[in-house]
């Protein structure tokens, strides 16, 4: 569900520019808690003005990495540089970062206004200047009328906006967001997502967002770093991550996917042919992957890139027969659960273009699942 983004990406994919200097450099960072390795030899370069998402399941080390950037945890080994400065000996209260906490961590004994002004007061900013900055940021998150309320008098969504305002008001070099939209309902989430993108555009602050929600990562970020058991397994734009996952884990974690185990018969620069007993049909891919013939591979095909038909197209490849075992009607589309003749179950989504289509596919129908030669991705691990 990667929303097409109209915003100008920082100098169009700055990370592909070999001369660009990264703003945040994470170099071989490892964090151990006793015997447990929370973050394992992670390296990443993040550029000025990026909105970088760290995406992963619970316990994958993404929050630990974020806390190391904020200075609440010290890396066991490795270095973190922000704007060229080594952060090793810099305590949290001297770092050019601000964090929005998952629990919001609003000071319960202070009003909204006092909460937001707290950071500016630490910098000994003149009172009138604090006042105007606080008012401006509260206007931006539409919380001005609640300025004199205490946090316990606010709803979850309002607290979240106060927390965002408090972390933004100091205009940090790096803003860290820990599951910023976790506690919000769907409507509010979407509104806030666009609000965050908007703010990022206007203030040009570099953001790092930790999330377990792939949809959130897809919509918000310029690039995503997918994390699994303490490591970043793939970094790329939302589109790259979705269309060209590099491992089974990423393919499976982002969106939904059908995976077929098989082995390579032919691997030419222009195409690959894979024999898969699970698919029950040879799989032809129209680009090479350069691996040894006979090597074991997994083929990933997204449900929306598959098609169902009642007639056999009869090309002898990329087409597997099966039986419809389940249909989930979702309004704009339907998800079909197909049991292939090989015994493997696959998911296929079809958009509902017409109301009550004439040749509607029904339960227990015999169907053929097919896909285009550029749809599958062959994965070696």
């Amino acid at each position: 569900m990667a929303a097409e983004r109209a915003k100008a990406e920082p100098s169009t994919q700055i990370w592909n520019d070999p001369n660009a200097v990264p703003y945040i450099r994470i170099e071989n960072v490892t964090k151990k808690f006793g015997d447990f390795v929370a973050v394992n030899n992670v390296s990443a370069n993040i550029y000025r003005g990026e909105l970088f998402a760290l995406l992963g399941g619970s316990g994958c080390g993404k929050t630990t990495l974020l806390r190391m950037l904020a200075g609440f945890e010290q890396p066991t080994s490795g270095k973190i540089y922000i704007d060229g400065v080594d952060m090793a000996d810099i305590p949290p209260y001297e770092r050019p970062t601000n964090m929005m906490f998952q629990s919001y961590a609003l000071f319960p004994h202070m009003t909204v206004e006092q909460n937001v002004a707290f950071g500016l007061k630490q910098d000994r900013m003149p009172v009138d200047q604090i006042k105007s900055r606080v008012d401006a940021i509260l206007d931006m998150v539409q919380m001005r009328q609640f300025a004199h309320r205490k946090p316990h008098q606010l709803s979850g969504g309002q607290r979240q906006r106060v927390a965002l305002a408090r972390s933004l008001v100091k205009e940090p070099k790096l803003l860290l967001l820990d599951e910023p939209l976790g506690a919000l309902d769907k409507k509010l989430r979407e509104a806030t997502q666009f609000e965050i993108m908007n703010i990022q555009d206007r203030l040009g602050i570099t953001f790092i967002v930790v999330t377990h929600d792939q949809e959130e990562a897809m919509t918000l970020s310029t690039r995503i770093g997918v994390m699994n058991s303490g490591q970043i397994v793939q970094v790329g734009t939302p589109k790259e991550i979705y269309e060209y996952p590099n491992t089974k884990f990423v393919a499976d974690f982002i969106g939904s996917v059908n995976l077929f185990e098989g082995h390579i018969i032919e691997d030419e620069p222009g195409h690959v042919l894979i024999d898969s007993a699970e698919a029950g049909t040879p799989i032809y891919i129209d680009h090479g992957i350069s691996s040894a013939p006979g090597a074991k591979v997994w083929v990933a095909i997204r449900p929306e890139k598959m098609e169902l038909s009642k007639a056999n197209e009869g090309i002898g490849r990329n087409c597997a027969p099966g039986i419809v075992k389940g249909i989930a009607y979702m309004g704009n589309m339907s998800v079909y659960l197909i049991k292939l003749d090989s015994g493997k179950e696959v998911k296929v989504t079809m958009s509902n273009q017409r109301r009550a289509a004439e040749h509607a596919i029904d339960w227990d129908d015999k169907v053929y699942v097919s896909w285009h030669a550029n749809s599958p991705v062959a994965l070696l691990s």
Partner: protein
Amino acid sequence: MASDNPQQTSLPLGGQIHRLLTALGIKQRTAVILVPYLWLTIFFVVPCIIILKISFAQTVIAQPPYTPMFGPDSVPHDQLFDNFKRLFGDLLYIKAYGNSLQLAAISTVFCLLIGYPMAYGIARCSPSTRSLLLLAIILPFWTSFLIRVYAWMGILGKEGVLNDTLLALGIIDAPLQILYTPIAMYVGIVYTYLPFMILPLYANLEKMDMSLLEAAADLGCRPLKAFCVITIPLSLPGIIAGALLVFIPAVGEYVIPELLGGPNSLMIGKVVYDEFAQNRDWPMASAVAVAILLLLVIPIMLFQYFQNKSQEAPK
């Protein structure tokens, strides 16, 4: 009429009580609250009223040793407040009150200064260490309070542990007079009441959300300042609860000043005892006791006010 029903007798006890309460028109919830309130009325409110009554009487050589409230021998109306007039007119009583309040206030401050770091330290330990340290705080309660005060006499006395140690180390040439001075009294009270300060403070600090301190640091606040502007304001209910739990009993403290403070320590608790046991002036003793009670009711009301306020505003 109830005996007409043969099933009535086979009802279990709970059912019988239920029937009785229904017959009396008392709701079950009311009944649950009623029991402790009855207890407190009989053993606290009634005695208090009796003492209040005696405080208006005059002493006589009789059994009981005071004039009755009503009847031909009762105190004339214009003399009803004589005891209280004496109380506020005699410098002895005023001084005793002042001493007791001073003792309680200074002891409370010391308890807070010692207890806060302890409570903070315990609250920041790992859960298993925490329960061990809390046990150590509560452990002294397992021996008699009196024995612990006597132990302090053994420590602070002329030939006590403290003086012996200091002499042996060559820090002093002659034993220090600590026992039977105000210092010994403060040591005893602070020692005895410290757990009452630590426990409510611990309960408060243990609940504190540590991410608030991280948020403060993240916003550029140094740890010491964060302690002053975040931790202390948030632990205020705990500080108030602890301070009142120390202050209130310390005002009326009798045993510790008597045993450790020596003959010159004039405390209000001792005055009550002397009036009652030595002078056999029950009305005067009662008047002093009533005055203490009034003196303490104000802090208790403050305490309740703050408790209600903290419950009204959950995090």
